[in-house]
């Protein structure tokens, strides 16, 4: 009985234990359920977060091509050394890493040690190492040599690179070196575009990086199933309008000129297609090698300062402004012709100077050119003729055209830092300023603006937006963006443009310019301007030429800044450079040479203005315009012509010239009614009638109109008579 009781008590106590354990087992089950099911996804994502590491896959940066598909900037794959200091700390191999990497990377041991012992799990050790170095490092990381043969324990001893890895990176190479360096630009160490096209089109070129998500501790040697791959999207290719052949001609010619003329201020050349605004070549001196943009001779042992670098990287064509000098006479000339304030043969006189606004402004030919006209004045580059022409154009029209030719705005070009240049405000633009501006002094423009405007003179009158990017193509070859030639506006009529080509050709030929290319029809104009401050004896010589003149395909603007050679004149410095470039381009374009002084075989020509010419001159002009001619009447001067100047006709059409004495050319005109009109309208009406405006009263403002005039409408007066017009509020 007692034994049974003991046994029963023991049994109860055993049962108590069973229930105690069951109690704990139930708690355990509940707890596991809570962790795995209730909190499962939360813990899982936290676990994934620490278990995985994202490794960025650098996309391949797009290639920059020239218009012919020649590579100007390409990316190649290189390795970058990175460290995981956490792993290194755990495996205590920092000293082995330092001892192994320092000689290979040619880095200071202390520097490496500092990097790999930082308190982080990712550090760059060395970026973009060359393939020889990366081969040596890869050997120790993989434990295998290049042929896949395992290295022995002895060979690996002391070279435990655990925590060090190689990451694929890309490096930019510029096969052309300094070719078009100021256009292409270059990238920084992180492959970000820093200058030029590389900077402006960075978002197209760089692409989108991808990533590999891997187990963060897999360390390359440990097994891991988890690896997700998100493809990188390679950058787009940029195709430039640059023709690297032409660019090469330009670079070579400019190299020689830069040395020969000792251009202290540098030099630049811009070659465009005036019919599209495409930039075919663009170069600046001094230049630099895109593969090492920070290394060039600075005259001292020290590395170039930031200012020196920025100076060297300046694209003068786009960023710098200059006084265009006499090249601008072409613009003034076109305005005069477009506005018909004068014609090519209206007589002018150059006494060697002109007093404007009480100031004596000299012609460079101080003894004077004597009797002249617009054409001769252009050939001679005679300032007094142009000052008189500008006076006829008048302040308002000059001001207006300065805008319409695009000098008051950027061209919205593809490259950064584009300048606008400076011009007078309307109220500061008076008689003297009007006079000097006619020959390109007193204001500034960029070479790009100048070339764009001259393009309009020869292409039929259209201002084309200049551009250097032709197309953007993605890595599969699909065109993403394509630049079509953009006409900004028509600035002058086709007739004026045709005449301008004739003038440019005549100027180049008759001035005996060094810009000529034997066997080709070229037009051009030189310019020389004194840099500010006046009297510094620093000049800018420039030349702008266009060829073939009957069907312009190429426009070339050469600027030599502060030449210190034998001459500083544009005609002596820039012109030969333009000639050399043009000759190579025309041969490269396979343009057939001809005898060199007749205008074209194109079907169309234009009737020149021959009124006032001597019969001999008129014959020459008519021939040069591919016209047949007949004379009517007697005398040695053309008094009138049929058809009128500017008319478009077929080649070999007839121009009929009525002869008489110079006195018979009409010197009289009828005063038009100019009351109740705006200042601009008055100006235009009077100019059409060959009269000059003498504005009185308040001539500017919103509601200003002309109130009265003197002489009265209908009065017959001599040409160039001043008509006094009173302006006031309506």
């Amino acid at each position, binding site marked *: 009985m007692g034994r049974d009781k*003991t046994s029963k*008590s*023991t*049994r109860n*106590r*055993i*049962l108590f*234990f*069973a229930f105690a*354990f*069951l109690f*704990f*087992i139930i*708690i*355990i*089950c509940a*707890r*596991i*359920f809570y*962790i*795995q*099911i209730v*909190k*499962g*996804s*939360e*813990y*899982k994502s*936290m*676990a*994934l977060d*620490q*278990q995985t590491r994202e490794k960025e896959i650098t996309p391949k940066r797009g290639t920059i091509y020239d218009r012919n598909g020649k590579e100007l900037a390409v990316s190649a794959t290189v390795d970058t050394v990175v460290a995981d200091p956490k792993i290194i700390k755990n495996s205590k191999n920092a000293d082995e890493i330092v001892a192994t990497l320092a000689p290979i990377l040619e880095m200071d041991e202390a520097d490496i040690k500092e990097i790999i012992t930082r308190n982080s799990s990712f550090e760059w050790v060395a970026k973009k190492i060359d393939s020889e170095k990366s081969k040596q490092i890869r050997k120790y990381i993989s434990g295998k040599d290049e042929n896949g043969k395992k290295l022995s324990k002895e060979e690996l001893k002391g070279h435990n690179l655990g925590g060090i890895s190689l990451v694929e990176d890309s490096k930019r190479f510029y096969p052309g070196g300094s070719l078009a360096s100021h256009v292409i630009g270059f990238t920084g160490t992180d492959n970000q575009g820093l200058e030029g096209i590389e900077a402006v089109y960075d978002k197209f070129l760089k692409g989108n990086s991808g990533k590999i998500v891997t*187990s963060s*501790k*897999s360390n390359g*040697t*440990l*097994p*891991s*199933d*988890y690896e997700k791959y998100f493809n990188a999207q390679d950058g787009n290719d940029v195709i430039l309008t640059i023709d690297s052949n032409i660019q090469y001609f330009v670079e070579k010619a400019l190299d020689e000129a830069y040395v020969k003329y000792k251009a202290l201020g540098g030099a630049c050349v811009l070659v465009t297609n005036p019919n599209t605004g495409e930039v075919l070549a663009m170069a600046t001196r001094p230049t630099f090698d895109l593969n090492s943009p920070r290394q060039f001779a600075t005259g001292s042992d020290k590395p170039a300062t930031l200012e020196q670098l920025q100076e060297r990287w300046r694209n003068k064509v786009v960023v710098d402004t200059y006084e265009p000098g006499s090249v601008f006479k072409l613009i003034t000339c076109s305005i005069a012709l477009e506005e018909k304030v004068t014609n090519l043969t209206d007589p002018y006189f150059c006494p060697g100077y002109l007093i404007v606004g009480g100031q004596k402004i000299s012609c460079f030919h101080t003894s004077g050119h004597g009797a002249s006209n617009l054409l001769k004045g252009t050939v001679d580059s005679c300032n007094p003729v142009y000052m008189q022409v500008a006076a006829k154009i008048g302040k308002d029209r000059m001001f207006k055209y300065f805008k319409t030719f695009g000098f008051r705005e950027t061209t919205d070009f593809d490259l950064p830092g584009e300048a606008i240049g400076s011009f007078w405000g309307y109220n500061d633009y008076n008689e003297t300023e009007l006079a000097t501006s006619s020959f390109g002094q007193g204001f500034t423009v960029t070479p790009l603006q100048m070339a764009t405007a001259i393009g309009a003179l020869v292409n039929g009158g259209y201002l084309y937006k200049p551009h250097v990017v032709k197309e953007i193509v993605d890595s599969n070859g699909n065109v993403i963006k394509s630049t079509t030639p953009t006409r900004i506006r028509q600035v002058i009529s086709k007739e004026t443009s045709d005449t301008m080509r004739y003038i440019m050709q005549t100027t180049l030929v008759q001035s005996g310019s060094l810009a000529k290319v034997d066997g080709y029809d070229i037009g051009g104009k030189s310019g020389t301007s004194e840099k500010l401050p006046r009297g510094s004896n620093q000049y800018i010589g420039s030349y702008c030429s266009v060829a073939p003149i009957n069907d312009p395909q190429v426009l070339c603007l050469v600027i030599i800044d502060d030449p210190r050679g034998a001459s500083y004149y544009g005609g002596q410095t820039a012109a030969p450079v333009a000639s050399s470039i043009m000759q190579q381009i025309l041969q490269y374009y396979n343009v057939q040479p001809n005898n060199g002084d007749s205008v074209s075989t194109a079907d169309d020509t234009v009737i020149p203005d021959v009124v006032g010419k001597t019969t001999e001159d008129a014959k020459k002009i008519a021939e040069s315009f591919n016209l047949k001619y007949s004379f009517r009447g007697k005398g040695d001067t053309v008094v009138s012509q049929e058809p009128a100047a500017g008319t478009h006709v077929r080649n070999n059409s007839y121009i009929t010239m009525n002869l008489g004495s110079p006195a018979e050319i009409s010197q009289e005109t009828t005063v038009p009614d100019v009351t109740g009109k705006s200042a601009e309208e008055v100006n235009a009406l009077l100019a059409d009638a060959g009269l000059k405006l003498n504005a009185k009263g308040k001539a500017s403002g919103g509601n200003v109109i002309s109130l009265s005039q003197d002489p009265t409408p209908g009065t017959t007066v001599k040409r160039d008579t001043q008509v006094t017009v009173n302006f006031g509020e309506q």
Partner: protein
Amino acid sequence: MAKKGHIKIKKLSAADAELLSIIVIMVLFGLVMVGSASSVNALYRYDDSLYFLRKQLIVAAVGFAFMYIISRIDYHIIASPVIIFLGYGAVWFLMLLAAFIGDNRNGANRWIDIGGISVQPSEPAKIVLIVLTAYICSKQSKAALNRFGSGVGLYLGIIGVSVFPLLLERHKSATIVFAILVIAISFIGGANIKYYLMMAPFGIGGALAWALHDEYSRQRVLMAFDPFKDPKGSGYQAVQSLYAIGSGGIFGLGLGRSQQKITYIPEPQNDFIFSIICEELGLIGALSVVVLFTFFMFRGIKVASEAPDKLGKLIAMGLTTLIMAQFVINIFVVTAMGPVTGMPLPFFSAGGTNLLFTLMGMGLLLNISRQSVKKRPLI
């Protein structure tokens, strides 16, 4: 004398087949999980992903051999005073030795080197302590057990003497197991529960004071309640374990696919093997483990209740308690319900001594089962 002789010559019946099956299943399951959990660690450290599995296989083979041999030796022979007291003296001395000359690992000296093999003397000590306590308890009269001095006082004394070297070793988990074993056996054996309840406040107070006596221990205890307060420091292991268990979900990531074993959980084949089981085999795998231990508990209790005498009952309950206490504490630790102590999961964790002596203890349990006296079912 006659009774003793009768038992000695009694032909042993077959061992409890279900108990044996559960033991074998758990050891094999454990081997698979050790192989999986340790592979990365082994590859990383020894360039041989099977390093730990191979060691564990050897231990399991030796352990099964010992289990078989012991299961064929009558437990009354093993539980003879000479063997018990000599054995107890020996393991006590070895534990003391470990405290002074043992290998220091993770701030505790619990290993000693015997013939090139690292052994934790506290592991055989657990078995010896069970047999010792059961023997003493089975020899005491009901009256003696009822008194404080010869009952609870005596057993508290045994606990004190036994854990003294462990305190020097700073071996908290074994200390707790020792205390649980002596209390459990003496309680089932008939010690007056009143005195235990009276001593409980002192015990709990002492345990708390001990658990919180230094900053290291304090942090571990505090982190047991919110390991995310310091996930990179003292809460690290608990947090990593929760990540592993949580990642498993219902079906797990699949055998061998644990990510947390890749250097996040240190020594994943040892104390935290249950976390890897949860991660790789999910809730299904985790509950399988719990079910196996629950079955084991019932079979152990069955063996105890059918044991032919009090000594057998107490040894069987001691061994069952040993396995279950370690199981519960281990799971509490890895599920962040208790401070991290070095508590292995019996049958599963790698670490040779624990499995070897666990299997030797199971030999003893099987031997008791072979002497079962069929009774009406306990439950």
